[in-house]
């Protein structure tokens, strides 16, 4: 029986904890050392947790700290398990559930943005339509020939999804997405002196 097993709840505790799946965004500050991402990902696959989105980059060069942003789905109990399991990894400095933190600001989500590069080919009316729509979405053209555009678009994941859906019938060729970057609202930081 494992943590991800939804049956692993006692009758005692069914009354208080809902079974509803929630999507949470976690920020994880880690030492930027070889294998650290494998530890994080291995934890998710080994324990059967979901990864909806993952982005990672070194954010503090002097201290060799990276910030991993993970969007995951699970019951509140599983999300709490994920947080504790991540915290147990030796090179993990801090884990923060940004979705829980956002609730303190009466928001259902933290600040989240994603960037996508979207390649569209076509000619004639479809090509014009693609260009018009990109302007509506505030996407910028970063490469073009007479046969194609590459758009750069930034925004919430839902906006990017929508943009890609719209481009599909207009000659969508390929997409590259960064995954979600996220920060908390308010003046407090996660990676400054706080830990």
């Amino acid at each position, binding site marked *: 029986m494992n943590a991800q097993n939804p049956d692993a709840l006692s009758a*005692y505790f069914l009354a208080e904890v809902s079974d509803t799946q929630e999507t949470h965004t976690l920020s994880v500050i880690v030492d930027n050392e070889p*294998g650290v991402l*494998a530890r994080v990902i291995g934890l998710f696959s080994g324990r059967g947790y979901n990864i909806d989105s993952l982005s990672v980059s070194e954010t503090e060069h002097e201290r060799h700290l990276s910030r991993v942003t993970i969007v995951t789905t699970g019951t509140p109990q599983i999300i709490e398990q994920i947080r504790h399991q991540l915290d147990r990894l*030796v090179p993990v*400095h801090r884990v923060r559930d940004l979705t829980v933190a956002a609730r303190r600001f009466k928001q259902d989500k933290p600040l989240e943005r994603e960037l996508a590069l979207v390649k569209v080919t076509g000619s004639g009316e479809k090509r014009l339509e693609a260009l018009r729509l990109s302007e509506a979405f505030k996407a910028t053209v970063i490469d073009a020939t007479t046969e194609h555009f590459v758009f750069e678009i930034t925004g919430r994941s839902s906006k990017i999804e929508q943009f890609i859906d719209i481009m599909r019938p207009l000659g969508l060729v390929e997409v590259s997405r960064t995954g979600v970057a996220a920060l908390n609202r308010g003046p407090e930081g996660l990676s400054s002196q706080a830990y």
Partner: protein
Amino acid sequence: MEREMTGAEMVLQALRDQEVKHVFGYPGGAVLPIYDELIQQDDIAHILVRHEQGAGHAAEGYARSTGKPGVALVTSGPGATNMVTALTDAMLDSIPLVCITGQVPTNLVGSDAFQECDTVGITRPCTKHNWLVKKIEDLPRIIHEAFYVATTGRPGPVVVDIPKDVQFATGTYEGPKSIHVQHKSYNPPTKGDMTAIRAAVELLATAQRPVLYTGGGVINSGPAASQLLREFVKLTGFPVTSTLMGLGAYPASGPEWLGMLGMHGTYEANMAMHGCDVMICIGARFDDRITGRLDAFSPNSKKVHIDVDPSSINKIVHVDIPIVGDVAHVLEDMVRIWRSSSFTPRSEVKIWKQQIDKWRARNSLAYRPSEEVIMPQYALQRLNEAIKGKDVYISTEVGQHQMWAAQFIDFEEPNRWLTSGGFGTMGYGLPAAIGAQVAHPNATCINVAGDASILMNIQEMSTAVQHGLSPKTFILNNSYMGMVRQWQQLLHGNRLSHSYTDSLPDFVKLAEAYGGKGFRVTKPDELDDAIAEMIATPGPVLFDCCVAQLANCFPMIPSGKAHNEMLLPDEATDEAVANAIGKEGKALV
């Protein structure tokens, strides 16, 4: 202390600085420089095993019986992969283990070189942490950090993978002092939150039907934790049960002892868990062998959980008062608060204990005695009589014999019981007994085994002979993988698929072939003399105790059933056994 030395010298110096006296290992190409240093010094003894898995389990036995970290040293590739079972075993049971592996030289890493494997990749999920040392400058820090991580917080196994060129390279050695005063990201908790502890003590003071559910965390926390547990029980008079891993923390002869709980625990322990109004879980983790059916687990209790690992809390069972902290520290606070508040247990506790006595009177460990064949339970009762009051360490393999040993051997002190609980590793017992014997040369180390399990690491008999160690292996020989057979009877219409071992070796001759001594006993009345002789015999012994072949291990909570639905030995007719597990239970392990 800072001075220039090679990587291999650093390994030895670091082990010395970590006060390591014994290393269990097996040489090979990628660790030759370290072995070359080993032979040129006398501070650290090396115990040469016959298989790397044996080195791992021996180091575990050493660690469990001393509370100190066990150290293993193996080569790259197969040396490292043979350690994986032992590492996972140590991970599941939270045993401090430092495993040093050799690796191919850094310039060959990733080239599929001879005896190369991705050791840190393979061992990542089965260690608390692991390191590949790429530069000599990092080596001393990493080794000291490895010991710190393995032994603090919730203990566990770590691997330090050292490429051969790093072993040859020269660098500056640093002692352990400067390194882990404050680790940059790893800071395990010690003290529990006082508000929570106070709330827990107050809750206990109002309890009418309390029970203490203790686990391996009490043992891992050190001897002080066991002392404080005993003190707390003495203060409150609350009944105590324990998981398999926690046996010995509270003495089996203690007045409040309920016996082990869980799948093969006593009726009184499981009924007390089911009926309690306040449960305090101390260093245990609500494992599925303990809880049985979760939605019927202790339905009417308030629960307190003390654990050093926050991820254990609310993982399986929701608790009302979580306390994150080291067991000894938290118990110390609890004892102090109970005393200073002059709490006394409620009068209803007396009625609760009378109820428990009624459950105890069911005598759930009973079995049908026999004068013709040796009942396995009887054999262990005789063994228990023979070792009473002696300096004895008991290890086990995995299966029926393990559960019977837990039921019938009385543990009075912590660190005397070495068994593979979480991972259930057959082949654990003999090397673990060897490890315990290395740490306690004058004690009697007995491995209670089954005929199937013992064959999984039988080669370590040779290790015992070479190093003058005297582990006694007490084999309950029924020619079956008894627990597998029992489950086939329970779940699969008694179709005994491949659980009978034809052509077992002659264990007496096998012992002699290794240079040890063998005994065979087939009659109950021969047992006492033979056991006495086994204990008195110097050197390793294989004791072939031929027992009733088809005995089942009871009591038992069948899979998918709750604590109050135990199958008791006097009710376990063939029909009851055949129908004990429902459809849903069959899917569980």
